[in-house]
C-alpha cells in the first residue's frame, strides 16, 4: 500500500467532531450486518420502553387458563404466542418486561465494567512503575477472589435493587478487561509513535486519549461485546441465588433459571429467553465489529 489512492479532497486539518460522528453512523448504516445489529438493538430498546403498552398479558398474573388440565405450562400458540411458564404466566409478556432488566444489566453493568477495566488498564499500562504495580496487584486480587462469592457479599450488604445488581456485576467483570488492556497498552507505549509524542512534549492526557485509546478500541469493543452475554447470565445466577433482581420481576436470565429443570417437557421456556440473550450479544457484537473496522483507517474500503 504505497501509492496514494484517494482523489485529493479538501484539507481539513482536524475533522470536526460532529461531522466525523455523522460519517461513522453513515458508514454503519451502509453495512448490512451492522444495520441488522443496530435494528435489533433499537427494537429491544423500544420494547423495554414501551413494555407496558405492548405486553399482550399481565406478566405477573398467574392465569388459570395459562396451564393445561394437568397443570403443565402451555406451548407457544393461540392465546399465548410464546407459551406460558410454570405458574401460567404469559412468557411473551414476561420477556418483554424482562428486556428492561436485561438491557440495563447488559448495558449499564457491562458499560461500567468496560470503563473501569479499560481505565485501570490504560493507566497502569501507561504509567508503569509503582502505579502499575499497585493497580495490577489489586486486579490480581480481584481476579483471585471468587466472583460469585464477591457478588453475593456485595449484594447482601446493599439492598438488592436493579442498580445495585448492575454495580455488583460491574465490580466482578472489570478485571479481565483491565488485564487485557494493561498488556496491550504496555506494548503500545513502547511503540515509536508514542515516543514521538513524548518528544513533541504532549501531556499524558493527550497521549492516552488521542493516541493510545484509538489503538485499544478494537480490544475494548471485542471484550465489551463479549461481556454483554456473560453479564446477563451472571445476573441470572445472582437472581437464582436470591441476591439478584427480586422475583416476581422478570429478567431473561431468571426466566431461564426458573424453568431450566423443565427443559425436556417445556423447552420453549428456556429457548426464547436464550435466543434473546444471543440476539442481544450478537447485535452488539456486529455493531462493535463494524465500528472497529470503520475507525481503523487502514481498513477503509474493505468489508
Amino acid at each position, binding site marked *: 500500500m504505497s501509492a496514494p489512492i484517494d482523489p485529493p479532497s479538501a*484539507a481539513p*486539518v*482536524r475533522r470536526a467532531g460532529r461531522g466525523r460522528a455523522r460519517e461513522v453512523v453513515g458508514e454503519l448504516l451502509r453495512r448490512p450486518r451492522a444495520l441488522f445489529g443496530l435494528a435489533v438493538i433499537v427494537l429491544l430498546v423500544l420494547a423495554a420502553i414501551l413494555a407496558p403498552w405492548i405486553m399482550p398479558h399481565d406478566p405477573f398474573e398467574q392465569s388459570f387458563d395459562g396451564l393445561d388440565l394437568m397443570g403443565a405450562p402451555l406451548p407457544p400458540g393461540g392465546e399465548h404466542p410464546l407459551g406460558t411458564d410454570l405458574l401460567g404466566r404469559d412468557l411473551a409478556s414476561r420477556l418483554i418486561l424482562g428486556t428492561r432488566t436485561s438491557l440495563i444489566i447488559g448495558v449499564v453493568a457491562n458499560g461500567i465494567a468496560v470503563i473501569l477495566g479499560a481505565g485501570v488498564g490504560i493507566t497502569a499500562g501507561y504509567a508503569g512503575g509503582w502505579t502499575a504495580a499497585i493497580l495490577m496487584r489489586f486486579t490480581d486480587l480481584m481476579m483471585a477472589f471468587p466472583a460469585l462469592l464477591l457478588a453475593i457479599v456485595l449484594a447482601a450488604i446493599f439492598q438488592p435493587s436493579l442498580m445495585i445488581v448492575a454495580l455488583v456485576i460491574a465490580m466482578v467483570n472489570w478485571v479481565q478487561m483491565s488485564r487485557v488492556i494493561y498488556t496491550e497498552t504496555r506494548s503500545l507505549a513502547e511503540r515509536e509513535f508514542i515516543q514521538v509524542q513524548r518528544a513533541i512534549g*504532549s501531556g499524558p492526557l493527550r497521549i492516552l486519549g488521542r493516541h493510545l485509546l484509538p489503538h485499544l478500541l478494537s480490544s475494548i469493543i471485542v471484550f465489551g461485546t463479549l461481556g454483554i452475554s456473560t453479564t446477563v447470565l451472571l445476573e441470572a445466577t445472582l437472581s437464582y441465588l436470591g441476591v439478584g433482581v427480586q422475583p416476581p420481576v422478570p429478567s431473561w436470565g431468571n426466566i431461564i433459571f426458573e424453568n431450566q429443570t423443565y427443559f425436556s417437557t417445556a423447552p420453549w421456556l428456556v429457548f426464547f429467553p436464550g435466543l434473546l440473550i444471543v440476539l442481544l450479544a450478537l447485535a452488539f457484537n456486529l455493531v462493535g465489529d463494524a465500528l472497529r473496522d470503520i475507525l481503523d483507517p*487502514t481498513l477503509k474500503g474493505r468489508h
Partner: protein
Amino acid sequence: MSGTGDTGRGGARPALEVRDLTVQVATEAGAKTVLDGLSFDLSPGETLALAGESGSGKSMTALAIMGLLPKPMARIANGSIRLGGTELSGLGERGYRGIRSARIAMIFQEPMTSLNPLMTVERQLCEVLLEHGACRRAEAPGRALRLLRDVRLTEPERRLKQYPHELSGGMRQRVMIAIALACEPEILIADEPTTALDVTVQAEILDLIRALQRDHGTAVLMITHDMGVVAEMADRVIVLRAGRQEEAAPVETLFAAPRTEYARSLLDAVPRLGTAPPRPTTPDAPDAPDARNVVEVEDLSVRFDIAGGLLNRTVARVHAVEGVSFHIRAGETLALVGESGCGKSTIGKALLGLVPWQGSIRIDGVETQGRSRAAMRPVLRDVQMVFQDPGASLDSRMTVGEQVAEPMKVHGIARGAELTDRCEWLFRRVGLSPDMLSRYPHEFSGGQRQRVCIARALGLSPKVIVADESVSALDVSVQARVLDLLAELQEQDGLSYLFISHDMAVIEQVADRVTVMRLGQVMEEGPRDAVLRDPRHPYTKRLLAAVPVPDPTLRRGPMPDTAGIEEASPIFPVGRAPERVTLHDLARGHRVARQAATAP
C-alpha cells in the same frame, strides 16, 4: 535425500532455470501482477544478484522458488522453475519438503526471528540434519559442531549449548548459514542477509558466504537493495523494477556502463564513500562570529539498571553512554556514527529528555539537567527528533494533517485557520501537496512518510533536529532526495542536525563534523574530512574498511578476523564502570581516544 552428483563448476546444465515466472497477488481490485515474466539461469558456483528497490518483486522471486508464497493471496500464474530436472512450480507442500533445505536453502534478513528462541543452537542444527536424513542420530551432534566450525564461529562447543538470545546478531546469522548449509544444498538463496547487521559484521558474513561458496560450489541467489553488496558479491546482476526485469548484465558491465536509465539512476543514487566534495572545515575557534553553540553536552552518561535476583534488585548496569561531551554549532551537522549498541541513539534521546541521564546538556544555552517532563516542554521547541522508521513513528489512526498540527497545538503556537495555513505551508516546504493533509499514513510511501515526520518536527521551528537513522529505512533513490531536503532546510533556516547513522557513506554526504562512538564512549571526533579521510583510531579504520564499495573492480580482500571484538559489551556489574578513555588532540579539533595505542 541423496545429493546430486552434478555440482561440477561451470557445467553445461544450470542448477536453476527460471522461465517467464509470473506471480500474482490477489487484491480488492483483482489480481495484481507483482512479478512479470522473469527468466534467468543460475549455474553451480555462480552468484546472481537480484537488485531492486522495495516493491520490485525481488523477495517474491525468492519465495516463489522456495514455494513459500503467502497462500492463498499469492500464486505463480505462469512460468516454470526447474531445479536440475525437477519442475518446482505447482509442486505441493509434500514435494517441497524434499527440496527445501536439502537442495535449496534460504537465509533471511532477520536472524533473530528466523531462529527458534526456545531451542539451543545444537537442537536446531540437528533437527535440520535429521529431518532430511543427512546423517544418523548419533552422528548429528558431531556434524553440528563441524558446521559451526565451517561458519567460523568462535568457541563452537560452547555455542552449541546456547540459545539464540545469547548470541550477537552476527553470530546468529552465522548459525542461520550453518543451518542453511547443513544438507549441502545446491542453491543458497540469501534474502538481504546482512541488512540488519552492522557494517563490520556485514563484511565478515559476506566473506563467509563467498568462502563457503568457493569450497562447496553452491550457487547463490543474492537478494539485496544494496548496490555495495551487489558489487562485492555478484557475478551477474538482474535489476528489477516493479516486478519486471529492467536490466541483466555481468556485474562489471552493469557498474561500468548501465544500459537502462533506471539502472543508471539507481547506481547514481548510491552514496559512495570518498566521493563527496571536500568541505571547508569549520574552524574550531570559539570566537568565530557565528560559532554560537546550539547544543552543548558535557560529561553525559546514561545508564540503565538491569534488575534481577530474588528481590528484583539492580544486579548490573548497561553503561549505554559514558562521559560523552560534544557541541553543535548553529547551522552545523554533527554526525554520530557507530555500530548498534554503541549508545548513539541513546544520546539523541537524552537530548530530548526521553531517557534519564547524568551530566550536562544545554540546548541553546538552557540547561536541561533535572527538568521534569513538563519543564522540558519549552526546551522541546528548540530540539526535535526525526525517527528511523517513518511508518512506526506516525499514528496510523490519525490523518497526517492532524499529526503535523499536533506539536503546534501542544505548544500553543497556532490554532484554527492559522494552524491549517501553517500545516499547508509545512507540507509544501517538505515537498508534499497540501491536498494530502487529510490522508492517513498508510496511503503514503516510505519516503513521503518521512517527509511528513520532518514537517511535524519543523512545526515548532526547532534549532536542532536529531535525525536518528532517519534515512536508513528508505530506498537509495528516496534516501538521496530526503537528504537533499534536509540540506535545503539547513541552508534556509540555519538548522543544526545531530545526524545519527551507521552508514558511513551517508554520513560523508551530510556531516560537517563526525564523532565515532563505540560502547558508549567517543573513539574519535573531528571535522568530517579529517575523520573519514585520515582516520587515526583502529576502530574508525575498521568501520571505514568494512563499508562495501559499489564498484566491482575494487573488491576488498577478506576482512581481518575480528571475532574477539564482537564480544565486548557495555554491561557491567554494579559498582564497576568501564574504563574511561581520554581524548587527545591531533589537530584542528581532530581528537582520538588515547586507548588507541593499545586497542586491538
